[in-house]
């Protein structure tokens, strides 16, 4: 069962209009579809926003999700990345306790994962980590024992591999 309930990443290009986020979110909640994460921002053409939605479900549910998204009047294009090659990145900002004993360890971890420290105090580091969600999870697992004060994740964004792009 678990293998059928796989994660799927979908990009949705929508009219950058009032209420469009509610339409998409409402569609998912109203029809009982899952949203694991959702990120949204305007594209080069600021009349179009691009959403990246990570969802889960079997093949039938995924087909319904893409069809229902397409049915929204404000939806311009739906791209399902399930069977294609794509690059996926997520960013996390993590505020970690950094006492005298742990400061060096924290910096080492930041270094290993090619993160950046973006804010420093006497008692904390705030770092920026970018990568696939699995990488973010690895960093979190390592930092947890040291003491994470606060964390925010952007949710993944994806783009298909290759030279071809959706113009927008």
């Amino acid at each position, binding site marked *: 069962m678990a293998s059928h309930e796989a994660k799927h990443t979908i990009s949705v290009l929508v009219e950058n209009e*009032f*209420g469009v986020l*509610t339409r998409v979110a409402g*569609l998912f909640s109203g029809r009982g579809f899952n949203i694991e994460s959702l990120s949204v921002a305007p594209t080069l053409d600021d009349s179009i926003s691009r959403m990246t939605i990570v969802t889960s479900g079997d093949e039938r549910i995924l087909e319904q999700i893409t069809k229902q998204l*397409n049915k929204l*009047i*404000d939806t311009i294009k739906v791209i399902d990345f399930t069977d294609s090659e794509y690059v996926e990145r997520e960013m996390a900002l993590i505020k970690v306790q950094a006492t005298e004993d742990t400061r060096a360890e924290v910096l080492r971890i930041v270094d290993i994962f090619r993160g950046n420290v973006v804010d420093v105090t006497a008692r904390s580091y705030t770092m920026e980590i970018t990568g696939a969600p699995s990488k973010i999870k690895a960093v979190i697992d390592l930092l947890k024992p040291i003491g994470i004060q606060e964390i925010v994740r952007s949710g993944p964004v994806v783009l298909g591999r290759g030279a071809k792009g959706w113009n927008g």
Partner: protein
Amino acid sequence: MKRTGSQILLESLLQEEVDTVFGYPGGTVINIYNDLLDYPIKHILTRHEQAAVHSADGYARATGKVGVAIATSGPGATNTVTGIATAYMDSIPMVVITGQVPTPLIGNDAFQEADIVGITRSITKHNYLVKDVRDLSRIVKQAFYIARTGRPGPVLIDLPKDVQLATTEFAYPESVELRGYKPTISGNVRQVEKAAKMIMAARRPVLYVGGGATASDAGKDLIAFAELLQTPVVTTLMGMAAFPTGHPLSLGMLGMHGTYYANMAVTNSDLLIAIGARFDDRVTGRVAAFAPKAKIVHIDIDPTSIKKNVRVDLPIVGELRDVIGKISSKLQEDKDQIAALSEHTAPWRSQIDSWRAQYPMTYKSSDKVIKPQYVIEKIRELTREDAIIATEVGQHQMWTAQFFNFCHPRTFLTSGGLGTMGFGLPAALGAQVACPDRQVIDISGDGSFQMNSQELATLVQYKLPVKIAILNNNFLGMVRQWQQLFFDRRYSQTPLDVPIDFVKLAEAYGATGLLADKPDQVESVIRKALDTPGPVLMEFRVDREENVMPMVPAGAAIDEMVLAS
């Protein structure tokens, strides 16, 4: 010349050739109502906003045109919700215009403010909040276009009071630009060819016709298609009148209260061709046992309907007439093939005939108590072939579907998807406004009727000669039936024990009331009602515990019917 938002709205309605709107005035639409006096648009004042929307819906169902309703903000808008949801479930083209508090007050919990765009988001095909008067004509144009094209549906326009008062130049757009909305009209040729092959290979084919056939006005095409293939036809509640019930190939309705032979045909078919239907749970019964031996071809303009509830072997997205026409042409390329097909499927048709003979659609008649089915049969007998029949929801609705032989599309107005009690009377009202010369009958139960009985006043005010037939059993009959069959006759809250004098109620509104409580009075009451000008309410005191049969119990397969109680 500059015009106000409310004038632009009305100008736009004229551009859309709207001649009638249904509505109810209020504070945030007072300017629209003021300007309405200067426009050649007929306004029908219902007595409840829900009824205004159902009336616009009935108007749309009877004509195929876009129905239009107007309501004020807040409670006016929230009262439209049931009407909008009803239209949405049944894919009825409609534009609902609501007033809204002035834009600077939106979000402030102002008097009579409700976020109707938020509330109706999931029950409209699309909706708009107009924030700038310069967008208004474009939005109205888009709203009508969206409502009537593709799979039709209701669109709501929320119009704040200050936008109604703001002014700009009026220019109605010539075309609609919606990059996210391009319904597929033309069926894919390769899919069509596959369908033709599957049809040629079938030995036990069935056409399963839904409301899409009415929405796309495909009635004639369907008859031609069924006759070409010599294929039996089952219809959903929404598809009933799209294919004439009296046609030799018609097996009537399938599903929970379908005919024995329709359900047997579907269960034993080897090819089920779904045409503008959506495999509702009331149709399929237990999904795993639905049409288990059949390959399924699903033709629909809405891709989301396909593979939503059942597996589909061949999906074809497109407008029904286009797809059916293409399949027919493909099949007709080889005349011998067609002749052979009819021959191959002859044993199947005789099998169905024997099912039909075994358990025909029937009921136990009585000369002591009025059988509700008898009333339905008599109404059919005494009305014209093109009479428009509206129903409410419940037992009377199912009996109408089972015993009224519908001859023409758009003559059966019923809330199929949402199952809205109180729909029939206002829908009949709207249909009568649209078709003043036709006979319009609302077949009702005593429960449903009381959900919008105030519309008797509207019928009287506009001299609309709608005839109402209440099958009065002093019960919420359908729920009572379930309680009888599945809850050990524990009639919880289903007896309507106050004996309402419906005749007096009709008379109180200035309509005519007639009563029949013996079988031999039924015919004379119907005749008298049909001969009486203006609205007439007929009350038939019917057998209180008559059940709708056959019945597929919840969770059962559709061939596991209870045939009689």
